[in-house]
């Protein structure tokens, strides 16, 4: 059973007087334990597709299923809940909060629920990504690769089923990028999650179990 499934999803929006079709009947799915890479030229709709998969946006037409549940018509608050419990994000710019330590950044998604003490899990995750000696460091004291690893740990704090990565190696050099990809590969197995990455980086194509090419809003099979 797939973790996330998009069926005939269309996304259109108005730009000025024009109606722009960003995604045109896209069908996509990902399952536990696989890394899927989405590639395509600029403007092909990769980011839009990732937003759909990540429940950050709702489709104009079509349906989205998360773990067998239809989430197409959920309210923003319901989608927020789904994101909280099932989906983790890793961004090109890491997007860590500068005034929090590495551990606090990892705990961030749980900070509004003090009764849920995830501190131990945060430390555990940071240790597993090799940052046990950087727990109290702030992002400015970390290298790009280290920051991305913190971001990955954060994405996993709530034990999601899907991890979405938007150009995860975009700001990293070749070697550091490879380290990150090794990390993700390890995690997809140990955590049994689906990883969906959008990228230009050809390294990701090598690490992927499956490659999906998006051109002008449609998938090339």
């Amino acid at each position, binding site marked *: 059973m797939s973790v996330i499934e998009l069926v005939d999803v269309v996304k259109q929006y108005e730009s000025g007087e024009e109606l722009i079709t960003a995604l045109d009947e896209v069908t996509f799915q990902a399952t536990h334990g696989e890394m899927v890479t989405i590639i395509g030229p600029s403007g092909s709709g990769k980011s839009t597709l990732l937003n759909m998969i990540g429940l950050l946006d709702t489709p104009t037409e079509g349906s989205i299923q998360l773990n067998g549940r239809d989430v197409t018509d959920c309210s923003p*608050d319901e989608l927020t*809940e789904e994101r*909280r419990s099932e989906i983790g994000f890793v*961004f090109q710019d890491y997007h860590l*909060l500068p*005034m929090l330590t590495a551990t606090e950044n990892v705990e*961030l998604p749980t900070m*509004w629920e003090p009764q849920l003490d995830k501190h131990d899990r945060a430390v555990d995750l940071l240790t597993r990504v090799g940052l046990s000696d950087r727990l109290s460091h702030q992002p400015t004291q970390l290298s790009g690769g280290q920051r991305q690893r913190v971001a990955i740990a954060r994405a996993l704090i709530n034990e999601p089923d899907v991890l979405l990565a938007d150009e995860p190696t975009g700001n990293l050099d070749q070697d550091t990028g490879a380290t990150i990809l090794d990390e993700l590969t390890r995690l997809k197995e140990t955590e049994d999650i689906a990883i969906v990455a959008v990228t230009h980086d050809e390294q990701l194509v090598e690490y992927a179990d499956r490659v999906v090419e998006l051109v002008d809003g449609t998938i090339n099979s």
Partner: protein
Amino acid sequence: MAWRNLGRNRVRTALATLGILIGVVAIASLGMATAALQQQATADLQGLSNELTVSAGPDNSHEGITANQVDDIETVAGGATVIPEKTNFTTLSARNGAETRLRVTALTKADAMYNVTRGQVSNRLRSGALLTDSEATRLGLEIGDPVSYNDKLYRIQGILSSSQGFGGVRRELVLPMSAMAEQDHYDSVTVLTTSEQSVNSLTTDIESWFNGQDEQIVNVRNFAAVQQNVDSFLGTLQLGLLGIGSISLVVASVAILNVMLMSTVERRGEIGVLRAVGIRRGEVLRMILTEAAFLGVIGGILGVVVSAAIGIVIFEILIGSPLDALHWHSARYLLYGMGFAVLASVLSGLYPAWKAANERPVEALRE
């Protein structure tokens, strides 16, 4: 979280807090200043609040209050002290050539009417006199020196304070009743009520005893009306000043609104991340409102401290008892100022908080 967010731009936070501080100080110290004025006014009027004055009305067939009428007043007044007085004006000259024109009052029971700052005052003055301080100084006279009135000499027995309530200056010479023996009527009768009596009801009693429907034999005055006027004036003054103080707090709120807006616009990307990882809109709203509330609380507390200090100084200057500033009737303005500050800050934070919370994560993440 809110606390650390504020710490990211300390100068900006400090300036917004300063605005609130000034607003609180404006409200609280103006409030305390009016409380000081009220306290002073009450104290000033206190001394007069048990006093009423009877004088001849337009329909009185005599030039003043007669002895018989004084007896009647004494009957109506019950246990109150009745002090008939004769008054005139005179010019005193001194050996040093100085001259002064002042009021002369002749009475008995001088000790009931006057307090001396130096010397003594007795019930019957006999050949003694009381003189106000300013005139004594001007004429170069001291206790024991003679003054002359109507070709008779009296010795200064006591010195009276020259200051009257509300900044008035009193210039008076007090002599025994015998000094105006040739005048058979009394110019006024002062009645001092006992603590069980009400000045207003005694005023009414005396009036109804003497005056008929269209006949005003006597004119009775007390300070109740004055007190009411003063209270009313001070009340209006207070509202006006508090209104002005509030304006400054409104300005501070606008500053907070600005600070919060700038801060949330700058953090758009971050807030987008928070929403992406599953932080609910309500939680984002609470976070930003808490930041605004902190600004209000910190500015408010500092403002209260500064205002309390200013209040103590005001009370020292106006009344001379600085710690009265901390009594409830004055200290409550500290509370109002603080409350207003927190309320204003939270209200200012509402719009930025709402805006940030409802921003679509997709848009915000584009930053």
